[in-house]
């Protein structure tokens, strides 16, 4: 609000909301988020890490920055927003993510972006076990190390692992593709290494660019299921 008490006009891309979440319950916080105008920017701070389901079902086309970290199942079923979390995230952040983008600058817990159907989820820090579990069309980029069984049960979509993988990579995957750079500790059952074709290389490069990362594409290897499901995944 300006000095003369007049509220500034809301312009697309203009910072219009600062939300202090510390006194709010998760229901109150999610309600405040749902009332934000389309096309605007917002900052949220002070979210207690114990809150579950922050931003669950969030469906606004806005730029949202969460200052701090979030608890389990944050932004589950998220759609259309461009979300940035400046620190870490708990269990299953971005579960069933539908569209838009989600950037986690810190470390995240297990099952990040599990069952994600679309959109782009990027983790700049380390990811826990089962990153991208059951991925169903979304795109996930983990810049740093990841834990056990990344890409397990993948059905479609793309998982990019930028600094080595744990054991059981892609265990039980039936579709999609995993691009891994660095040491692969062990492959899961039903997974094979495949040559990276030009189309894959182009797609990987574009995906990394969207995730705000750059590296030598030649350092990556690709992995696909031995026997893809007939309903398939994205190639």
């Amino acid at each position, binding site marked *: 609000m300006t000095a003369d008490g007049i509220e500034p006009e809301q312009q697309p891309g203009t910072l219009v909301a600062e939300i202090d979440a510390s006194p709010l319950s998760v229901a109150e916080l999610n309600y405040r988020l749902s009332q934000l105008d389309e096309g605007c920017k917002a900052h949220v701070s002070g979210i207690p890490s114990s809150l579950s389901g922050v931003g669950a079902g969030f469906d606004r086309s806005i730029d949202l920055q969460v200052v701090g970290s979030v608890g389990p199942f944050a932004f589950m079923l998220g759609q259309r927003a461009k979300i940035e979390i400046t620190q870490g995230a708990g*269990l299953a952040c971005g579960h069933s993510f539908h569209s838009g983008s989600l950037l986690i600058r810190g470390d995240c817990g297990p099952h990040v972006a599990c069952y994600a159907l679309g959109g782009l989820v990027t983790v700049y820090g380390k990811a826990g076990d089962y990153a991208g579990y059951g991925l169903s069309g979304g795109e996930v980029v983990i810049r740093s190390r990841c834990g056990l069984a990344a890409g397990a049960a993948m059905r479609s979509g793309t998982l990019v692992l930028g600094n080595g993988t744990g054991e059981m990579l892609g265990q039980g995957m039936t579709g999609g593709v995993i691009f891994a750079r660095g040491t692969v500790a062990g492959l899961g059952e039903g997974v094979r290494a495949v040559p990276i074709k030009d189309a894959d290389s182009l797609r990987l490069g574009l995906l990394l660019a969207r995730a705000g990362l750059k590296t030598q594409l030649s350092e990556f290897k690709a992995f696909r299921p031995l026997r893809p499901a007939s309903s398939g995944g994205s190639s």
Partner: protein
Amino acid sequence: MSILDEIVLLAPEFRVLEALDSLEPLDSLAPPSSMGPHAIEPSPNSEPARQLPLPFVLRETSQEQVGTRWNELCGLLKSYGLAIQCPAAQLQGVPGNSVPIRMAKQSIDESFLAGEFQSADIIVLSLRSVRLDSWAFPPELGSEANLPHWIEAVRQACRATKPIAIELPMGVDTKTLEKVVAAPIDILSLVADSNMPDEIIVESLVRARSILRSHSQSDLPIQVQSRHSQPDHLIKLLGLGGSVVAIDGVLNELWAESPDLPRGFLSKVESRVNEKSECPIHRKIRLLNQAFFSAIDLRCSSPLENLGQRLRALSDRAEKIAQIPFLGS
């Protein structure tokens, strides 16, 4: 302590079973003089919108199975006040104004679909994997301590406007049941596999009701799905602690009468319907409801009074949370 010892301790539940065993077989049961305040005698030729209370639900019967008469079946469900449950991804195929309550089932190991949560009246979260036959606590949740977080996140995703049920297999261990009961759920759903012995079904249901009592959750409804197809068996499951039972076993017998599903069955149904007869679905559902309310009339002692109260509690809860009007006068 063995399972048999547990059943002995829960003897009061079996007084209810004995009472139900003493009822006459359905075919010879005289229509009661009063069917209670909550029932309306349905007429095959009546207009839709006759409604009955909600002790029964249709699960696992799909549009694919019924074919082109799906809308007609949904209208029939509405005339008897029956809820329908189907996988969340198929819920759009259930016309919203043709059934009283639509329940969307979401399995733990599938992507959640935002659109279906908006249209469902009740959300059923199944902890059973669609890919694995045997039961194991889902790895997606990490540990049982994360179960309340998951439920809360789903509740937030649908803006806390819909009741949430958790589905478990019959025979699940007590520790898991206790963790689920301690989580913020609205309905407990227990599902029996097709080859599960009756002893396990009975024990699981009675044990679940006992655990609810010990956690001060006596009002929590239990939805039961089993393979039973005889109306009196379903009534017994209500007497043993179920609040709502699935009647798919009853209807599956009707589907099985014709090998040429779905068209063969439906043509047989059409050929039977005339001014003086009912179609098999009408008759079976009418008998179920007659038997149920007759049991309440004949046995006014506390075990069955509690049964009626539990059912009323279910409908009241649905009315408050999902804003679905209580079905019945």
